């Protein structure tokens, strides 16, 4: 729906929603920042990290999953643009691909969570951070799948774009949160 066709009240509503989502993203990402700081404070108490006798997990598979997550966000953005342009078929295709890549990321990180050996504080921090992120990715991913169904039923469309736009914004949030965690968990 073009901006020109919106009434002043609808424009205000759109502006409010976008501002609200941005502030939510800024606010909630700070929980993830807090957990990164927790990681840093805990590792600062140890002469080496991981502690002696603990092997750091390989970054290869999670690295590939991270690339998949980035591609997923790009596809979600493309899908929303397609829907705004009135192309529902393109939206469905791109949105489903985004969901598939997101599901793949969830599977990989679920495997990582399960496979890390219990090693005290190191595995505690690793599991806490990955689980915290996974829960967010899962919840927002489920919301995105509801959007897919809504689009199929015609409830989400160019005339009612906000659900797709909002879900895409939340998926960006999942990506940014993971980009904060990934280096701390696997690279540094």
């Amino acid at each position, binding site marked *: 729906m073009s901006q020109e066709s919106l009434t002043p*009240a609808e424009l205000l509503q759109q502006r*409010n929603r976008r501002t609200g989502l941005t502030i939510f993203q800024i*606010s909630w990402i700070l929980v993830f920042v807090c957990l990164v700081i927790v990681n840093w404070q805990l590792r600062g108490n140890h002469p080496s990290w991981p502690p002696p006798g603990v092997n750091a997990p390989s970054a290869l598979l999670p690295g590939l999953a991270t690339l998949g997550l980035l591609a997923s966000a790009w596809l979600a953005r493309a899908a929303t643009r397609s829907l705004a342009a009135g192309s529902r078929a393109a939206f469905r295709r791109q949105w489903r691909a985004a969901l598939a890549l997101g599901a793949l990321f969830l599977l990989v990180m679920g495997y990582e969570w399960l496979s890390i050996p219990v090693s005290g*504080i190191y595995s*505690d921090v690793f599991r806490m951070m990955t689980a915290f992120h996974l829960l967010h990715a899962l919840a927002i991913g489920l919301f995105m799948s509801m959007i897919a169904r809504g689009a199929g039923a015609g409830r989400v469309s160019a005339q009612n774009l906000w659900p797709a736009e909002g879900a895409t914004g939340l998926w960006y949030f999942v990506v940014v949160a993971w980009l904060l965690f990934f280096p701390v968990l696997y690279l540094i």
Partner: protein
Amino acid sequence: MATITATPGLGSRTTEGAAIRAADLLRWSLDHKVIGLQYMASSLFFFIVGGTMAMLIRWELLTPALDLMADGTQYNALMTIHGSVMIFLWIIPMMAGFGNYLVPLMLGAKDMAFPWLNAFAFWLIPPAGVLMIAGWLVGPPEAGWTSYPPLSTLFSPDGQTMWAMSLHLLGVSSILGAINFVVTIRNMRPAGMTIWKMPLFVWAVLATAIIQVLATPFLTGGLTLLILDRTAGTSFFDPGSGGDVLLWQNVFWFYSHPAVYIMILPGFGMVSEVLAVHARKPVFGYRAIGLSSMSIALVGFTVWAHHMFTSLQPALRIPFMITSMIIAVPTGIKIFSWLGTIWGGKIRFTAAMLFALGFITLFVFGGIGGIFLAAVPVDIHLHDTYFVVGHFHFVLFGGSVFLIFAGIYHWFPKMTGRRMNERLGQLHFVTTYIGTFFTFVPQHIAGALGLPRRVAMYDPAFTNINTVISLAAFLLGISSLIFMYNILRSLSHGERVGGNPWRGLTLEWATTSPPPPWNFRGDPVPFDDPYGYGSDESGPYLDAVERRFPAPEEAAGA
């Protein structure tokens, strides 16, 4: 009965009757006024709950031996829940209640930006309150409102987990409410109201909301770790297993020191309104007050470790001492501006004004106590003594609670269409002022003499001073009963008022009392200067408002 629809997403409301009934407070409502009153009513309930606990605490401390409690653990539980209820379920939600009720009105808006989210944020509070109090059924939390590990991880029963879950809910509620405030204030100001023409209460709510969206996530992070340590066998706060006991203190205070400003900044905004209206003077230093709210919000993020001077690395003490001293500057600017506002004014000593003036005197005293505690050498001497208890109660009761009382006396006519009884209000003020002074000043003295905090039994040498403190605290209890009686009585017997009983210039007064469902009939036009009292234009404007929204008796006579 007509039904109208406003902005998309806000739904429809009946236009019949503006008054909000008691039963409305128990229902899901999207009206910001109902939600504001829901916050305030539930906060007052928790004020009674927390206040009753305070009375029990002071009863126990009348003598050095155990009187009421079977053992020290019972006392620890009482003190923990008293502090948590007073902070998280009384002061913070009460400030949110004022914000919810007043911000859309002051902006000339029909409602908040997200009414559904607004209602949802409120309805997280009752279950959080139940979780907090119901901890008693499974073994109450005993680690104090700060809940430092290992007390909160190894030595406190399951109620401590419920305490953490309760705070989780309250944190989410706080963030959602704050998002709503920021969006409403940013996007929904009327034409002609630039940020430099916003009422100072709105400035204060904006500064508070910024703190809430940026600080509360850290509490969420810390609580998540605490719950995991208690329930999932992790060891984030256990140094014996590679964790760090100071981790909680850092995360907790990174939220909780800014939370001090969450509890006081909206009150700073309220006092600016009350002083200007009841002194009939323009606010002195409008921009300085608005910007000092923002300064406090920003500097408030750099002072958290002054709560940890005794456990902090020595090299970090001085930087945090300096930032803690610096934050007194914007607060001092406000005090100076408020004094400038009332200087030479035509002061009306209403109950609202008395509480506002009382706040200034008490807050200066409390603030000076804060300077003591910001100085590292003094703080190390006073750490964990009653001086700390006296200080934070002085700024919270003499500060936040006095401002809440001032705000209720000031805006009660707007919310109900009736004025509170002034004589009872003055009695309430006198008893509260005396009670506050003689409860919390002697606590400073006892602390400086070495009385430790958080103990049910103490050295008999402190008996006399504790007796004075307890008797003064009981006077505070009586004063609160006077206040509650005044509210209940005024709801049915208070003098009926028109739209603008105090002749205020901000927009909430340019509508009926109480306001209609969508706040205004038509789009209100803000007066050019919200604090232009005494200007040539203000008199005719106020007269016109009075004619348009007269008291019911005057309207019937006309």
